[in-house]
């Protein structure tokens, strides 16, 4: 029984890491709390659902297209809107992204209605050491985890990745080194949107998704980001796994209605006791 919850927790953890890594990157690099993140996850899920169910395209074509579309959306939003106020106090950027969130969420609600939708792909379940795991969940988790690791690799080894890390460490020094800050900001936001879209696709593979869930996804991203520490990919992975397992344990011990509260309480404890997160220090990827 406990084993089943831990396995479920790890499965969720992979998804959570993908869900939060974009949010964490945006917060760490741009110093912006992106309230739009939850709606971008929904947008990814619905773009995928739209392609599969309305246009009848196969999912392996639609999923990358959906994520790509999210990248373009994120890049445009940052370039056109957020870059103008990005250096102002946090209240301004937070409120701006909240305003954008209201607009995007309302539009999704308007065009797709509030009905929960899912891709409805049944791949069966596998038995492993007496624990039952649906295959769709494994696939979703693997996609999410692989993309997260890919992002980690890109940040370490590509030129753009090093530039993003440099801006996170010290934006003035990075500017002096010839890095175009607005460009990097927009790219980072685009990558954040891409990862949100990927998380949305993986989510739609596993659960029914509705536009009303954007707040839930945003809340998870907050918690994971604070648990793991800002702006680092390993932090998001650790935070995602910890949250997945802790929620599983909370469900087991107190019942499913307390799972969210346990996550938030853990986050408040971490924010007060270990402000730089469980993963420790801010620094190199």
């Amino acid at each position, binding site marked *: 029984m406990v084993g089943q919850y831990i396995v479920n927790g790890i499965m969720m953890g992979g998804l959570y890491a993908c869900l939060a890594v974009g949010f964490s990157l945006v*917060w760490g690099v741009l*110093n912006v*709390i992106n309230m739009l993140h939850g709606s971008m996850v929904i947008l990814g899920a619905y773009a995928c659902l739209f392609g599969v169910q309305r246009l009848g395209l196969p999912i392996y074509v639609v999923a990358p297209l959906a994520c790509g579309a999210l990248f373009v959306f994120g890049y445009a939003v940052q370039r056109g*809107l957020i*870059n*103008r*106020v*990005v*250096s*102002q*106090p*946090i*209240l*301004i950027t*937070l*409120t*701006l992204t*909240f*305003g*954008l*969130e*209201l*607009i*995007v*969420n*309302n*539009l999704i609600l*308007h065009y797709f209605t509030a009905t929960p939708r899912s891709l409805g792909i049944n791949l069966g379940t596998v038995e492993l050491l007496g624990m039952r795991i649906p295959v769709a969940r494994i696939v979703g988790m693997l996609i999410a985890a692989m993309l997260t690791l890919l992002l980690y690799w890109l940040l370490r080894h590509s030129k753009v990745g090093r530039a993003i890390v440099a801006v996170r460490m010290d*934006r*003035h020094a990075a*500017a002096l080194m010839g890095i175009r*800050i*607005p460009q990097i*900001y927009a790219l980072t936001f685009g990558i954040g949107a891409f990862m949100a879209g990927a998380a949305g696709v993986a989510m739609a593979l596993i659960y029914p998704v509705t536009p009303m869930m954007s*707040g839930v996804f945003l*809340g998870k991203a*907050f*918690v994971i980001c*604070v648990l793991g520490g800002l702006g680092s990919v390993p932090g998001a992975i650790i935070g995602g796994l910890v949250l997945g397992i802790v929620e599983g344990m909370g469900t087991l011990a107190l019942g499913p*209605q*307390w799972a*969210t*509260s346990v996550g*938030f*309480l853990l*986050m*408040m404890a971490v*924010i*007060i006791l270990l*402000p730089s997160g469980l993963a420790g220090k801010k620094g190199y990827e």
Partner: protein
Amino acid sequence: MSLEPSSRACLIGLALFAAAAMLAFRLDNYELQVGTSVAMLCALCLAWNIVGGYMGYPSLATAAFFGIGCYADAIAQSQGLPIGVAWVCAAVAGAVAALALGLPLLRLKGHYFAIGTIAALEVLREVSNNWEWLTGGAVGLNLPMQAGDPDSVGRFFYLAMLGLALLAFLTTYAIDRTRFGFGLRCIRQNEQAAAMVGIDVFKYKTAAFVCSGALCSFAGGIYASMVAFIEPKDAFSLITTIEIPVMVMLGGLGTLLGPLIGGVFYVILKEFVWANFINLHSGILGLLIVAVIYFLPAGVMGIRPKKLGSLWRRLTSQRLRTSP
């Protein structure tokens, strides 16, 4: 007769309050309801402005205290306490909660403070959802209705909310004029420097947070008695907690009249949007928020007639500044 700006603002505010109180006997029931919600939002804006405006801490705990006030009032009334005592209970509960939350949260800065206060709100909502024997859970709690005809009950709550808004206004004026307000403004500008010149930073911050929390809870108490039914997602609403700073920004941060003007302006806009675009109201609200940030960064109070012409030019020529 020449007056200091803050005294002049205070006189203007008092005149507005007097006019609003006199209107109580002129308005019909719908107008009284709108008026009550204006007064409530003004009170919440003024309360938030102490922490968010004067002290510069981006608090998103407004709805947390508001919700605590709602539940404290409901629980006190279910124990048979009279309505006025229940309101005082609500305010005290809010002050205690602000003290308890402020001690850990006020050590945080900037983003972390904002996130910590949102987390507090989320936890409180979940707790009220699940602590069924005390809060009724997701089903909500019923409160006793006030006896009397709808008009006089409406007038009673309108005047009560107006009284609270006046209290919040006078508190703000007192803060604005005293050493306390000066200290808060110093903290906003540079907390370390404030500590260097001998301001007991932590005491000031806690006092401001408690003051703001008590006022928010008081408003929650009156609101709960008025609607006679509360549920977790209404009492601890994320939208409210973000709308309030937007209203204050709309009026002008850290000013005496800003919260009043912002609150009134926002409710008028919102009623208009609700009445005309019911399906897209939250999207239009979002557009309004975005517009306030780009077009009125200093709020309505920051508008200078001369500058209006150059507003568009400034917006279109705004370039990214990398300095903080």
